[in-house]
């Protein structure tokens, strides 16, 4: 939950910090990143076209209208996910690496082909987890795959740097003991914590209008994503949104 939202906001955040950034949708067949980025009506060629040499990167990349340094490479909606060949993905990523600072790969859910391709060539991985049992368990399994089946693992190179991003965090429910806390999750996954994104109405509002939520600077989720980008680039930013707003005596007394 939150992978595409995160990919969109991370890419936008990096681009706004002056980094040349491409964000690629690896969810072949479903194709949602362009919707979240708000460029769905500008898609002409896609990732699979580039892999099959039916279009070149310049034709397929969509430049973001809000930020000059950000480009989107959409997924194909019609093709089979097996069209993502390892050689093809490698060639495209290599070409992008030559002229961009960051290439963000938005992985589909699960551990099938699309997800394997999205993580195989990675240098860094951001594991997006909800404070929920099935999500934490899946993340742990994904970490196992990252450390055993990536290119870096196969070539015995330095392992992928792994980060944790906890999304849909409800500090109030954590305080009431109804939701796993960030410490609970960290006790199990033990990763470098890149950020905590609070459960927020702003996320839906942003995706409704095709705007990465990081651009909603007034919102808690937008600010949390900005903090996350700063931390990823090496800044020390204290974690926010860990505690519920304090309720007054009367509201506590009468519930609510």
């Amino acid at each position, binding site marked *: 939950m939150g992978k595409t939202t995160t990919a969109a906001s991370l890419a936008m955040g990096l681009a706004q910090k002056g980094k040349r950034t491409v964000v690629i949708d690896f969810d072949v067949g479903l194709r949602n990143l362009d919707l979240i980025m708000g460029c769905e009506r500008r898609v002409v060629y896609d990732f699979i076209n580039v892999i099959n040499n039916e279009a070149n990167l310049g034709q397929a990349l969509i430049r973001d209208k809000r930020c000059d340094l950000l480009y989107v490479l959409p997924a194909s909606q019609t093709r089979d996910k097996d069209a993502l060949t390892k050689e093809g993905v490698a060639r495209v990523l290599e070409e992008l690496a030559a002229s961009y600072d960051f290439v963000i790969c938005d992985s589909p859910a699960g551990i099938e082909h699309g997800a394997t391709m999205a993580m195989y060539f990675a240098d860094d991985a951001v594991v997006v987890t909800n404070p929920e049992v099935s999500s934490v*368990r899946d993340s742990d399994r994904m970490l*196992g795959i990252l450390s055993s089946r990536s290119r870096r693992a196969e070539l015995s190179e330095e392992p992928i740097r792994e980060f944790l991003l906890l999304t849909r965090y409800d500090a109030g429910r954590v305080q009431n003991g*109804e939701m796993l806390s960030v410490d*609970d999750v960290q006790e199990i996954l033990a990763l470098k914590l890149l950020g905590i994104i609070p459960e927020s109405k702003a996320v839906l509002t942003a995706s409704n209008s095709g705007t990465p939520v990081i651009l909603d600077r007034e919102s808690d989720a937008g600010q949390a994503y900005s903090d996350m980008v700063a931390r990823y680039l090496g800044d020390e930013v204290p974690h926010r949104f860990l505690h519920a707003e304090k309720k007054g005596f009367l509201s506590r*007394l009468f519930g609510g």
Partner: protein
Amino acid sequence: MGLLDYFRATQPPGSATVAKERLQILVAHDRAAARGCPSYLPQLQTEILAVIRKYIDVDMNSVTVNYEQGESHEVLELNIILPDSPSSR
């Protein structure tokens, strides 16, 4: 939280505690499976027991086989509990 809860001294433990306990067990189990204990382990245990039982009268449950994997080594641990007065056949 209503009026009565406010005066109650302790809150019952929430479902998050249950979630965490379940997760810890589940994840430990997943990791052991992923680390790839060799699949021949149960058969190995049966055969070793059969060989030992040819010579010593040991109980079916007195042989344990353990497999551990470190960073650069693997340990196959055999633990056989011999009876107090070994009776040779």
